[in-house]
């Protein structure tokens, strides 16, 4: 008998249907994945099961939990169900936890709902739960506030709060999307442990995660069920075109990498760049001593988790934030210093594409004005016709339709907006394009298209690209060389194919292990790294990575390793030569 039976579910807002005729079931102890692109209705379905849809949602069909109907049920019934039988974990733990109350108290409140009024017993259970989800030092965290915890810890707390009532079903809506990849691996491993006792409905857009953690799979497209079945079967023989599209677009770690580019002039070079922030009389080193050489026609990826300093590094190179030390040369000329002080030509040649496509476009201006703006600075001699031509040309390069010129940013889709941003950057024919997580906010298929666009541009014009990302699969598909950062320091710099095949630093190895791969047979996503990246306020002595490193020697605790050539790579590890990773 199924635990959860959804039949013909439909959710409408006014005239728009978000979900239509959706039917599926989840049995006791099963773990089912619900996968689809953003906006496909996955979260709406989850909220419907919990009875948490907003008041103006019109719900049709039936959702039965253990025989009891959820659609149109009385609020009290739903409360009881939510308190005792179904738990939910949301995507962004920072927003999902009450910032005004210590987390221990929040968890205790959930227990009080169950009539456990004895303070001491409740506290004990809370601590036990915090320990079970792997929170270090539960006694201390009991009194901590949400903002004092790291992202990974917060998500553990969220999971604890959902599990503390011992539910039969746990719904996890994109539980790891906001987390770093190594932390993601930890949380997924936690969910694995939970699977043994609780049924799991895992909602995500990431096929890699689904592949490794769900027995059955539901593919949802535009509110409708596209396909359903056992995970392995779906991956090996997808029946629906949409499923196939998703699988094809999912970035993998074993695809073809790009061949090395022809040697060309050195376009951008940084030497010993350091960036620090002053905070209350202490100097925090966000970036320490980074060297980078970029050739024309080449893509170098800067990879790191949050706190690794990749954004700070790039922004310092661009002159958006001040450098504490180091040199930056562009085509041989020294360009260090604030962007405002740099020569106009240099500013023209170094362009940036941001992560959030909508945010980087002025909501009050039309697309045409946005794309044409650089021309007013760098090609002021052009008349209106000349500008129009250049804009049309830029549109063609990025594959945008002319019709969009008169629209405003909020009327464009994510992919279209990002193309517009790229058009704006490319219209002045820069030599270097910096992409700061440029595809992180985009869906699978759109993402693939943008990456494709960047590759073509590069091959056509010899554009050099600095690609910042935390997503190794994406990095693999677009870079020639990869630079891995940890706590602002260089950890490894190597040829893309070589690094993926044979990483030389334990951190790189852990990163590669942690990436979930959309292959049910070998799904990756292995947990091999505990803990989280330390903060720059209190960096570990010696090698910054040593507290989490399996291979650490006493030497690593005292002496920071210098980056040196080992084989084809530059590595900062004392044991680089001897380690077989």
């Amino acid at each position: 008998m199924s635990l959860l039976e959804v039949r013909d579910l439909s959710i409408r807002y006014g005239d728009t249907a978000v979900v239509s005729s959706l039917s599926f079931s989840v049995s006791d102890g099963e773990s089912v994945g619900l996968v689809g692109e953003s906006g496909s209705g996955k979260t709406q379905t989850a909220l419907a099961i919990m009875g948490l849809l907003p008041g103006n949602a019109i719900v049709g069909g039936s959702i039965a939990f253990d025989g009891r109907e959820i659609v149109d049920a009385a609020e009290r019934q739903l409360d009881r169900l939510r308190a005792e039988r179904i738990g939910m974990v949301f995507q962004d733990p920072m927003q999902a936890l009450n910032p005004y109350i210590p987390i221990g108290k929040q968890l205790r409140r959930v227990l009080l709902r169950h009539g456990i009024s004895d303070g001491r017993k409740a506290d004990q259970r809370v601590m036990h739960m915090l320990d079970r989800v792997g929170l270090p030092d539960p006694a201390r965290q009991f009194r901590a506030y949400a903002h004092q915890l790291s992202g990974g810890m917060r998500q553990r707390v969220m999971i604890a709060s959902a599990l503390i009532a011992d539910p039969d079903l746990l719904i996890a809506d994109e539980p790891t999307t906001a987390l770093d990849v190594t932390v993601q691996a930890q949380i997924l491993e936690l969910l694995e442990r939970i699977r043994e006792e609780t049924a799991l409905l895992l909602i995500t857009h990431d096929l890699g995660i689904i592949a490794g953690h769900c027995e059955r799979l539901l593919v949802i497209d535009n509110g409708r069920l596209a396909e359903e079945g056992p995970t392995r079967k779906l991956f090996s023989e997808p029946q629906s075109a949409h499923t196939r599209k998703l699988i094809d677009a999912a970035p993998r770690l074993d695809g073809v990498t790009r061949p090395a580019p022809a040697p060309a002039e050195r376009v951008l070079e940084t030497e010993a760049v350091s960036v620090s922030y002053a905070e209350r009389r202490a100097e925090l080193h966000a970036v320490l001593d980074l060297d980078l050489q970029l050739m024309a026609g080449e893509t170098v990826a800067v990879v790191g988790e949050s706190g690794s300093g990749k954004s700070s590094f790039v922004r310092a190179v661009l002159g958006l934030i001040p450098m504490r030390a180091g040199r930056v040369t562009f085509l041989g000329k020294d360009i260090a210093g604030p962007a405002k002080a740099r020569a106009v030509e240099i500013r023209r040649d170094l362009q940036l594409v941001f992560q959030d496509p909508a945010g980087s476009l002025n909501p009050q201006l039309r697309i045409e004005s946005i794309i044409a703006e650089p021309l007013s600075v760098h090609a002021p001699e052009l008349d209106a016709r000349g500008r129009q031509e250049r804009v049309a040309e830029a549109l063609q390069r990025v594959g945008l339709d002319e019709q969009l010129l008169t629209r405003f940013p909020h009327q464009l889709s994510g992919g279209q907006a990002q193309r517009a941003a790229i058009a704006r950057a490319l219209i002045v024919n820069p030599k270097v394009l910096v992409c700061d997580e440029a595809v992180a906010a985009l869906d699978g298929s759109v993402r693939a298209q943008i990456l494709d666009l960047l590759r073509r541009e590069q091959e056509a014009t010899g554009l050099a690209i600095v690609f910042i990302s935390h997503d190794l699969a994406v990095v693999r598909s677009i870079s020639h060389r990869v630079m891995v950062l940890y706590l602002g320091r260089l950890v490894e710099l190597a040829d893309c194919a070589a690094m993926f095949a044979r990483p030389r630093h334990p951190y790189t190895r852990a990163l590669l292990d942690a990436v979930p791969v959309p292959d049910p047979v070998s799904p990756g996503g292995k947990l091999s790294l505990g803990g989280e990246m330390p903060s720059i306020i209190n960096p570990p002595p010696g090698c910054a990575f040593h507290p989490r490193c399996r291979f650490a020697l006493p030497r690593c605790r005292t002496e920071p390793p210098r980056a040196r050539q080992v084989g084809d790579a530059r590595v900062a590890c004392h044991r680089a030569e001897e380690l077989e990773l």
Partner: protein
Amino acid sequence: MLRYTLRRLLGAIPTLFLVIVLAFLLVHAAPGGPFDDERALPAEIEANIAAAYHLDEPLPLQFLRYLGGVVRGDFGPSYSYRDYTVSELIGRSFPVSLQLGVLAMLLAAVTGVSLGVVAALRPNTALDKIVMGVAMTGISIPVFVIAPLLVLLLAVQLQWLPASWTGSESSSRLLLPVISLALPQIAYIARLTRASLIEVLSSDFIRTARAQGLGTAAIVRYHALKPAMLPVLSYMGPAVAAVLTGSVVVEEIFGIPGLGQLFVRGSLNRDYTLVLGVVIFYAALIVLLNLIVDLLYGAIDPRIRRR
């Protein structure tokens, strides 16, 4: 937390200082002196009086002398009420105004928040629209319109309540002034509470609480109310200031011998020291209140405390 308090306290001092300086300058910039209205006196006697009140000294010196007095709590003698010092006058009138003000604020806070919560829990229903409509009206009618209207209605026409302070000794004479003062604040606080609570209720962490099966009552009481009160708390500073200014009008209309009335009389009589004293006193009150509000804010929102 202690550091936070100390820092705030220290910050308050320059404000007060600035107030004293400005007020002092303003008062002394006025054409005409405090004794102009009286019969012209022979020059000698005028000079004597001037010397006695230190009016002949250079301005900076007068200021320093005054400042010294203020620090000791001495605001100098009143020019118009000859037998009293300013401190005494303030001491006599303040309790009345305090009573009025505290009652009005309490009434406003309790009623306003209750109305706001009720409206927030049933958004867009008839109840909500009625409450908010009434509140909107309350904001739109100034104190000096409400007070006479209430007097007209309740005292003159219906004869339920006394129309003036001195006319009766019963505590019911408090009712009209307090209500007049409180009404606009009730309206404002109700609207603020409603908007704030609605916003908090749509936060993600409230959704989590609902997902944990907590009922509405529990959610409001435990999770939502504290954060929702933050904007209301911030408003308390300006609210008190508004009640203070309103009290000037109310005291005039009802003939209440409070601080507001004192101030108006003092201004019209060019009684420098009195006016100065009252202004500084009010400012100190407001600063103190803002400090308390800040501290309470820190107590509720843990993220602020770190600074």
